[in-house]
Structure formats: structure tokens, C-alpha cells
């Protein structure tokens, strides 16, 4: 079946602009995760959804970052007033039920803030 997909693949924006990054999880997966991977680093957890609700948003760095999953499938990560330090690859993952299930990752969106 289809894996996790993310759009766009690459996004270039200017400092101060608003961006939205989209994640389509594997069909039927109830859990969805966002991670951020800076250059030369491992991914860092941002937020975890179980169904439509954010079960753990402890990794969001500040209030410029927000994510939604209104119907329990597709999720959008929103970044307001982007800063150059937001430049990174944003990875999305999904798992069947969450908790102990294996997380399957998408190819990521590379965000570049000029």
C-alpha cells in the first residue's frame, strides 16, 4: 500500500512569512507524528496526534508552531513568522495505533528560510 507522503518536497520562503506543510499518513493509521531534523542532527520530536487530538505537543519549540489534524487523517504543520533557524527537514510519521507501534516515516519537507 501507499506509504506516508508529504508535500511539498521542498519549500523556500522568506523570513517572516507563513508556511504550511502537509502530511498524508498511511491509510488506517490513527497515530501521527511530526519531527524536525536540522542539518547534521537526528530528528527531534515535535508533536504526536492520536486521532484528531494532539496527545503530546511537548516538542513544539514556541507558539509560532502549530499543527492540526481535523479529520484524523491528513495533518498540517503551520509555522508563523518564519525565522532562519526554522530551516530544517520536517519529517512526518504514522503508526497504526500509537504507543508501542512501529513508526513509518515519510520523505520529509525541506524548509529553507531565506
Amino acid at each position, binding site marked *: 500500500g501507499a506509504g506516508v507522503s508529504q508535500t511539498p518536497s521542498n519549500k523556500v520562503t522568506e523570513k517572516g512569512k507563513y508556511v504550511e506543510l502537509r502530511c498524508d499518513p498511511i491509510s488506517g493509521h490513527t497515530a501521527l507524528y511530526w519531527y524536525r531534523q536540522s542539518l547534521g542532527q537526528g530528528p527531534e520530536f515535535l508533536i504526536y496526534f492520536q486521532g484528531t487530538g494532539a496527545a503530546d505537543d511537548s516538542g513544539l519549540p514556541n507558539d509560532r508552531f502549530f499543527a492540526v489534524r481535523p479529520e484524523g487523517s491528513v495533518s498540517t504543520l503551520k509555522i508563523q513568522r518564519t525565522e532562519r533557524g526554522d530551516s530544517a527537514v520536517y519529517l512526518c510519521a504514522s503508526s497504526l495505533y500509537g504507543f508501542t507501534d512501529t513508526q*513509518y516515516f515519510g520523505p520529509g519537507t525541506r524548509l529553507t528560510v531565506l
Partner: protein
Amino acid sequence: AQTVTQSQPEMSVQEAETVTLSCTYDTSESDYYLFWYKQPPSRQMILVIRQEAYKQQNATENRFSVNFQKAAKSFSLKISDSQLGDAAMYFCAYRSMSTGTASKLTFGTGTRLQVTL
């Protein structure tokens, strides 16, 4: 908070040879999962192997096996009969089994594996 350390930024192995990637972690928990993920240039993280901490037997997946030393908090990955397609970044990751924090993976900084002819 849990931490994962990969002390080898780069490793190189000849095709058909064996290589071992190191990983250590720090936790006060007794139940958890450990993973090795592979990230090729396409950026997509691919699960290589998974180990449950309560299992004493080391996990094996075809040419990939782990050496899990719970007391030493060590979790190394052995790749046998290395192939050109194994070239990638390899990340070690930790996942708690505590209900409050079991959602997230904590990753190390990765080891870049080169495979030469």
C-alpha cells in the same frame, strides 16, 4: 530525560565485509524499545531493526543484527555481507514504554556509513 549517543560520525566498510555501528543510551526506565533506522539520500527513514528491552535475545533481520547489552546501556548494529545499497545515515533511537512519553522517538546524531568496492 533519555539521551542517545552515537560516537561514530562516519564509518567505512568494504563490500561483502562486516561493520558494527555503536550506540549508547541513558535512561532510568526498565522497559523501553530500541531501534535502528536507515536514512538514505532520499531522506526517508526506514526501520532496520527493533529490540524490546525485556527480551534477552538479540534481534536479527537477515544481514542485520544487534548486540543489546542492557546493563551497559549499549545497542550496537552489525551489518554482515555489506552491500552498496547499505550506504546511508544510520540512526539509533529510543522509545519509552511509559504511557506519558511513549509517543516519541529520541534519536542519536547518526553515523554515516560508506560502502566501498
